[in-house]
């Protein structure tokens, strides 16, 4: 691998862009393929599999041994609402390997006393997300029930193609939410990606149980790329 290739790979990693390093194991020659360039690549099929699974491996092609090493951005979770469920969800998600941020403009909720060492931003989501924009490798869980706080980041998450978008609230609450989002110009296909009521249907009752149901649903989307 030459230095230009290494620089390109590291730049993609810093920009949270998925990339596959393709190395010829006989010569050591290497190149970086980003997702937008897969279709035109002679290894398109193997590259797609690498992007989907995130697993590295050797591919034999035309007498060559080629090593595909995917570098997928680390998964993040943005929690809207410094609420009771978030107090359980944040540490669970962190243990599962997610990079967690909690956002809530209500300073009475977003206090270090309630969240310890968790990354906490006491600001409106629209403002807080400008520094770390949502992307395909980010999950968003909207947990405040308050349209003033939840709606804008839900729209942003759908537009950014977040791999998981969940929203707390009963079916009735969600129906009202859908009406608002459709009035704001979102399509049914877009809002259909919102998981609501949030979490797998396991009869969760307590905040911690709802956190478990939510995290399990999130992981299913992450690993299976469920729609």
């Amino acid at each position, binding site marked *: *691998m030459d*230095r230009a290739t*290494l620089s390109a790979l*590291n730049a993609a*990693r810093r920009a949270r862009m998925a990339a596959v390093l393709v*190395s010829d*194991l006989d010569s*050591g020659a290497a190149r970086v393929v980003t997702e937008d360039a897969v279709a035109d690549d002679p290894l398109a099929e193997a590259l797609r599999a690498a992007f989907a699974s995130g697993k590295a491996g050797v591919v034999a092609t035309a007498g060559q041994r080629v090593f595909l090493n*995917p570098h997928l951005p*680390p998964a993040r979770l943005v929690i809207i609402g410094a609420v009771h469920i978030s107090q359980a969800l944040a540490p669970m998600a962190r243990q599962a390997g997610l990079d967690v941020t909690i956002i809530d403009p209500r300073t009475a909720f977003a206090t270090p006393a309630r969240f310890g060492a968790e990354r906490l931003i006491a600001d409106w989501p629209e403002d807080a997300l400008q520094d770390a924009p949502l992307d395909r490798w980010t999950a968003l869980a909207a947990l405040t029930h308050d349209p003033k706080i939840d709606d804008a980041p839900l729209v942003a998450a759908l537009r950014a193609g977040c791999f998981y978008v969940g929203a707390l609230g009963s079916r009735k609450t969600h129906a009202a939410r859908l009406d608002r989002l459709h009035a704001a110009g979102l399509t049914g296909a877009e809002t259909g990606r919102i998981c609501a009521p949030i979490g797998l249907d396991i009869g969760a009752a307590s905040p911690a149980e709802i956190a478990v149901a939510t995290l399990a649903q999130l992981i299913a989307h992450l690993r299976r790329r469920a729609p």
Partner: protein
Amino acid sequence: MDTQTEHPLAIAEAWAEAGRQVAIATVIETWGSAPRPVGSHLVIDDQGDFAGSVSGGCVEGAVISEAAEVIATGTPRMLEFGVADAVAWQVGLSCGGRIRVFLERLG
């Protein structure tokens, strides 16, 4: 983010920018219980400094000593370690796994 700057490939780039010669080791294949997944990196410079891992400590020493030659010659090497291999036993990969490591010079 700290984990970003600490990634072995980011360290390799920084070393190269500082004028150091660098070798990159990558886990290519594993069999049995290998402690580090395929795709993991160990990077080594011409002074023997290293970062990252290919085995969680079992075979790093052997890879580092091979790295000096790969840096000198520029020719990549495929290294294999496993319990069936006397050298691997010496370097301590006694956990029952086998790994293949590609070692190359950063050009």
